[in-house]
Every structure is written in C-alpha cells, then in structure tokens.
C-alpha cells in the first residue's frame, strides 16, 4: 500500500516539544513556568558589526612589517580613536586608529579586524504550556494539552487570538460582510478567502489572523495585511470537513498559529488532562482500506472520504466521499489522524 503524509487533527491531546535556542545563549525560564509562544524564553548572543582597518596602508608599510608597530593584540578591547598601531618617524610619524568601540578579533596580512561589542536578542516561539525541562544555554522542553491541528502553510508571522468561525460550512468563502467591529482581536475561520477586499478589511478591523481552506497565490504578490493559515493549499478549494469541524469545536478558545516542520501548527491550549500524546502521530503512514483521508489536489481537493480500494498497479486509490467515489493518485491523499476528545479513531 502506498505511503502518504499524515494530517493530525486532535481535538484534545497532550503535546510536548524540545525548543532549542537558535544559537549560543541563555534560557531565562525555569521548570514549572507557564509559557506562551509570545513570551521571551531566552536570549541569544548576536555578534557586533565588523570593521577592517588597513594598518599597512595607514602606516605606509608592507604588510609583513606591520606587526612590529602594533600597540594592541588580538582579543583586546579598544575605544573609538584608540591607536592600534604607530610608526614613529619624527615629522613622518603615522598611526592607525580604531574607528569604533569594540574588540580586536584578528590581525594579519596588514589588516586589523575589529568587532563591535555583542548584544542579546530575545527568543520567542515555543508551544504554549509549562516548562518541564531546561537545557542551560541550549533550550527547553515545553509540555501542554489541548487541541492540535496541522495546517498546510502559514503566510506571514505567528499569531494568536480567539477562534471565531464566521461561515456556516467549510465550502463558504469569506466575504467582506463577515467581518465587522466584533471581529477585533479574533482569528476568523472560513472556507476560502477569494474576495479581494477580505484581507484589507480584516486588517482594518483588527483581526489577528485568518484560517482558510485556501487562498489564491496571486495575493502573495504584495505583503499580506494579516497573517493567514491555509489548511488545504492555494486556489479556491474549500476547507476540508474534518478540519472545519475540529475548528468549530474550539470556537471561542485561544488559538496559536506557529510554523513547524515546514507546515503550521494550530494549538488551542486547555487545562483538562488527556491520555493521548501527539508524539504518537507518525508523519508518514501506509494507506489502508477504511482509513479517513482528504484529497489535497485536483477538482475534488478538500473532500474527505474513506479509502475504498487501492489500485496498486496504477498508484491510485478509490476514495468513498459523501455519496460518490473518487479515483485519485495515492500521493494526492493525506491520512487524517483524527482524535475526538478523549478517544482515538
């Protein structure tokens, strides 16, 4: 049976993640701390700008003779204007000075390289939950529970807000009239965002983000005024029924949209415990008869059904969708790993 990607749609599960700092730095949270994706959990060191001083030119000496006139050594901190090298010679005395505060990091070939002092940059973006482990200087492990849904793409920056499903069904596109002042601070869920006025209007009313089945790629020609999560892909396909129902189940709760593994994770934390761990979801699995799948490409993209029959020789499968069957390449299917509250299907 063909191997295809798995889409995780868990209405309630336990999740955990090791979150590493992007470079050497320090972790500032402790075990037991509650964190959200927008909290600073650490700092990394960013090295300062580099400056080069051509000592040989300043002293009018061949590079190999510069070393004997140096007044500083590698690793030494200097102030702007401080003399780095000097050539005594009465009226013809010459010297090279530091252009800015910093540290001498390398000297050679007639040059001195100076580096401005480093600064710290804040690190955010871990999953919402509690810190369960800290690796000093490297990262932390966060664990939490709640709904966890995978989307196809995050266009724009991470966002969060209260989920608000503004359309009656997954095939209904988002229209400007769905957006009003009550949407301020919310994350809107709809089928497909094809109307050109939708995105500017959403930004105008302070919408934090949109979760849509699809969006025309043409919108990407300009920077999007609000971040958008696509659950299906680009085009005009509706949102698949399974994802729409899962989002309906978290209507009114806080959702965080975070980029992970080239995809997007939608996390709605809750305080209730769960006995199922999201880590159990394998990213790839073999298609099996009876499995719930969604079609992700072609004229029936966005439809959900069960695998009726695999046709091994052609690499295709027949999928029983609502009322009729679809024949699709196996690679155009995604297995839906669905978890209703408290149970696994």
């Amino acid at each position, binding site marked *: *049976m*063909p*191997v*295809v*990607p798995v889409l995780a749609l868990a209405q309630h599960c336990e999740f955990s993640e090791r979150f590493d700092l992007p470079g050497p730095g320090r972790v500032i949270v402790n075990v037991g701390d509650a964190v959200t994706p927008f909290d600073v959990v650490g700092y990394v060191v960013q*090295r300062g*700008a*580099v*400056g*080069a*001083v*051509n000592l040989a*030119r300043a002293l009018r000496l061949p*590079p190999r003779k510069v070393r004997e006139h140096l007044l500083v050594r590698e690793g030494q901190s200097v102030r702007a204007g401080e003399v780095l090298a000097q050539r005594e010679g009465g009226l013809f005395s010459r010297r090279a000075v530091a252009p800015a505060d910093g540290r001498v*990091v*390398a*000297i*050679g*070939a*007639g*040059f001195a*390289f100076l*580096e401005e002092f480093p600064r710290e940059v804040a690190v955010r973006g871990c999953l919402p939950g509690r810190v369960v482990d800290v690796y000093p200087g490297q990262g932390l492990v966060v664990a939490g529970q709640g709904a966890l849904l995978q989307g*196809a*793409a995050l266009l724009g920056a991470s966002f969060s807000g209260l989920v608000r499903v503004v359309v009656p069904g997954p095939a209904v596109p988002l229209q400007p009239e769905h957006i009003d002042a009550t949407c301020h601070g919310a994350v809107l869920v709809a089928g497909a965002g094809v109307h050109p006025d939708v995105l500017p209007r959403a930004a105008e009313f302070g919408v934090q983000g949109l979760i849509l089945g699809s969006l*025309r*790629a*043409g919108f*990407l020609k300009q920077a999007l005024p609000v971040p958008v999560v696509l659950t299906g*892909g*680009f*085009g*005009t396909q509706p949102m698949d029924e399974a994802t729409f129902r899962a989002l309906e189940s978290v209507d009114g709760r806080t959702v965080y949209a975070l980029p*992970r*593994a*080239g*995809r997007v994770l939608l996390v709605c934390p809750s305080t209730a415990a769960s006995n199922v761990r999201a880590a159990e979801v*394998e*990213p*790839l699995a*073999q298609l099996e008869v009876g499995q719930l799948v969604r079609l*992700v*490409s*072609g*004229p029936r993209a966005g439809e959900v059904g069960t695998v009726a029959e695999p046709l*091994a020789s052609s*690499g295709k499968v027949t999928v029983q969708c609502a009322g009729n069957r679809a024949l*699709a*390449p196996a*690679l*155009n299917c995604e297995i839906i790993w669905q978890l209703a509250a408290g149970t696994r299907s």
Partner: protein
Amino acid sequence: MQSQVESFVAIDWGHATVKAGLVDRVGDCHRFIAKGIAPNLAAVGNLREPAAPLVAAVRDLEGISGRRVLGIDGLPIVPESFGAGVDGLGCSLSALPPLRVAVAALREDASLRYALSALRCTPHKLIGQVSGKEVAAAAEAFARFAQKLRDEAPQVVLIVGGADAKPDRAVVAFVDAIAVAISLLRPQDRPLVLYAGPAPLRQAAIAAVAERTAVRTVDNPCPDGRKPNPGALRAELALLQLALAPGKGSALPTIREWCGQRLLPLPLALLNAYSRPGVSVLAVDVGSQVTALVHTGLGAHLVLQACGLGQGATGLLAAVGPARIRRWLTSGLGEDDIADWAANRGLRPWLACEDERSCELEFAFVREALGQVRAAAGLAWPEAGLEEGSLPKADVIVAGGAVFSSAHPAAAAALALLDGLQPVGICRLAVDWLGLASAFGALAQANPEAVRSALERDDITVLGTLVAPMGQGRPGREALLVEGQSGQGARLSCAVTCGELVRIPLPGGSRMRATLRPRRPFDLGAGPGEPMEAELDGGLLGLLIDARGRPLPEAVAQPEAVRANLASLGG
C-alpha cells in the same frame, strides 16, 4: 578483495519523493524487481526523524517485493542472507542543501569568469564576493565581506586568480588576507578554502591558509588566460556539496550509515549511470527543485536551482513569467490558476497529475525548465564552445524525473522534450521510465554489469530516433526526404514539409537503414542540403521527423500547434 554486489537497493533521495529500487540476479542477468516510494517530507520541513521518508520508502519496497531489507534493529541486512537483505545499498542525492560559497578573486579576469561558470553548475548560495582591488583599496568593502563570512558561515571560500604562465605573487598576499578574514569565525565554523589558481603558487597558498583552516587546491579554470578548463573545479564543487552537507537535522547520517561510500550527488550519479565508451549521452533530469543536465562525452554537468516542478516551480514561474507557461496550454487555464498550481507544488512537491489539465500544466513547466537549462549550457560549459541556446551533439538523449516516468503518456513526454531541448541532428530519444537511473548510477562502481543490465533492460525506455535538421524554411515546402528499408524488407519513402512533425511507427528492437535528404537550407550535420546515410532505431514511438526548424519558431508555442503536434505523435 571486495565481494561482488549481486543484489542491491538503489535509493534516490529527491526533493519530492524518496525512491528505493531493488535489483537482483534473475537467471543469467540482473533485473529490476520492485520499487518503493514515499513523499519526502524532510525536504519541505524539519522532521523529528529526518530519515523517516527513507525508512518508509524501503518499507514500501518490502511490502511490494515481499523481501525483508531492514532488520529488527532498523538497519539494512547486508550482505544478503537466506533471501533477506541485500549485498549493498547506494544512493543518489538531489535534495542536498545548496553549497554556501564566498568567492574571492584577485582580478576580474578570465579565471574568475570561468570559476563563476563552474559555480553555476552546482546548486549554491553565493554569500559574498570580493576582489583584490577592494581588499587593497577599500577597508569597508573588505570588512563587509569579512562580516558576511562571519555571519553566514559559508562552507567554501573559493579563491581564484591569475594565469599559470605568469604567476603573480600578489595572489599569495591576497590569499593571506582572506585567511585573516576567515579567522573571525570560530575554528569549528571555518570554511574550507578552495584555491583554483596557478599551479606554481599552490604550495604558497596552502601555507598561507593551512594554519587557520582546511584548504584544497584544484586546477586553474583558465590556466593560459584564454582557453577555459573549468571541468576539475566543477567536479570538485559537486563533490563538496555532498561532502560538506550538514548532517545535523538531516537524513544524511542515516544515508551514510546505510550506503557507506556509495553516495553521489545527482549529476555525478547521472554521469556514472550513462557513461558508455564511444557513446555520448545527453541526460536531463527535471526534478522538483532542480533541473540537471549532463553530457557524458564532455564529462560535464549542470544543475539549475529553483527550476523544477515542485519547490522550484514558483522560481521557474518567476523566471519565465506566466505568459510563457500559458502559451503551451490548450485548456485555457488563467495566470491565477498557473500561480496556484506552482505554489501548491511548493507545499506538496510529491503531488501527482490527476487530470489532463494538470498534466498539460506540468509539461508546460517542463518545456520551460528544459529551455532554461538549454540556455544555461553555453555559459556553464564554455569549453564546449556552444552557440547561444544550443546543446552539444549526443547519440542518445535521456530524460528523467517523475514527469518522464511511466505514469505519463510517452507522446506528451517526447513533445515536451523536443520543444524544450530543441535537439538537432540524428539521435535516439529515451526516458528514465522507473526514475531510478541516478540511483543506479550511485552503484555503478559496485557492479557495473548489474547496473547496466537493470538500466537497459528495465529502466530506460527508448522512444525512438529523432531526425531534426537545423535551419528554417518556408511552411509547406519540402524540408526532408526520408528513404529507407527496414530489416524485414519494408520500404519507406516519406517527404516531410517545413513546419511538420511526423511520426513513423517503428517498433523497439527494429532498425531501419535510411537515406536522409534535407533540402536547402536544412542541415543534418553534413552541410546544408547534403544527404546522409543513417541507421535509425525504433522504439515506443518509432521515428520522429521534426522539420519544424531550429531554433523552433515561436508559432509552435500556440495551443493549436501544441494540439496538432501532439496528435502527430499519436498523443
């Protein structure tokens, strides 16, 4: 003595899918047995288990073939024992991260020009470039270069400059200055210095750098200041892309553990697969992110990044524009639909065509990707002395990539190949039907006979022989007269007019001796209007006589012309 690899799994680690093909001895020869495939999720995002697609493809192969390849420890069973496992594994890699390179050139001379042409052949990211003049005159420019080295940590700093006949000692001082800039990086992050300069100065260059970082030397890409010789640098860069590919967070450590030394980047694997004494093969592989072109006669390769049907589709679309894609479409899709298709392929590059419209769109992108490599070949292979937009002559042209596999109609594939590459003269056309040619190439050293047998018996499918004269004529006038006799004695006489594409069925395995009489100004290689005798091989499609002219007139890229040409090929 190393034992012969009788059974093997050939793996192709691509940007869209991971394929694993099993080959074993069947009777007195080696045959392809089965293929497993899995979407390469690791190529679109970081997976917790980056080797998961590799394992899934091999598990799929096990399910199809009924043969256990992986042991209970998850490692391949090597060598084959009691019908389980294989004697070896090999892997070709196209999904390698681009090589991060900084270039330092003493002067803007021929050496730099040809070094950059060699660099174009390997997927790379150019971090920065600095010249000797900038280093000497402008400390700010040198500081900017040094900061780029420090912040973006290139894997290779390529230093070029000078002619072998007149080695300039200034090169050594320049290398010394670059080495000082490199010392801004932590020792473990320092790049390899690749010195491609005059032979007499190599030892001095090594001495200037060796204390600070690793250094390698390679032939000067232009030793006499005129005649290009970028081959050695080109091959070195391709090998470095694999050797320096980061292992952390990638499947490479697992692939290395499974395959040992039998690992090659895509273009070198293709060269290995198709190299035959006395036969020049031009092989093209239209992948998901890159399109590769190799010529075995020249021993040259070229890999164009952001030029493919998956992650490379949006880059290709941006490079050529939607109008050039749309001109090949008969289904009337709009520019928005084309942009959606390309963006979706970036999200899920493993997607397959599910209807005619999607197939047609895919072949439109293929034509433009092939056009891009055709245009790039002249710059990338200066030693071949190619005219702009032309390709070196070859006896056989082989097309690979999922779009040329058995899942697609042969006529559409052949037409896309003709429209995109615009081959000239007489050559056989073939396709990599299983999509495993490069994977087999990674194992070519382990058992050349077995690889050749599996490739030629099961993988490569000959479409037929192409006769395509150079030149253009007035539509409706006779362009070429083909007269021949097949091995069975059947006689053929066929006059082809300008602008026509004609298919003459000739089954695979049969051969026809033919006299080809081009009319002036058409030229098959012997001169305008000069006749030629040739042996023409049959194939899945037969003989293809392309008298549409070279270069192809713009009119062939019209929906009606595409429809008519496809019908001529039986599609």
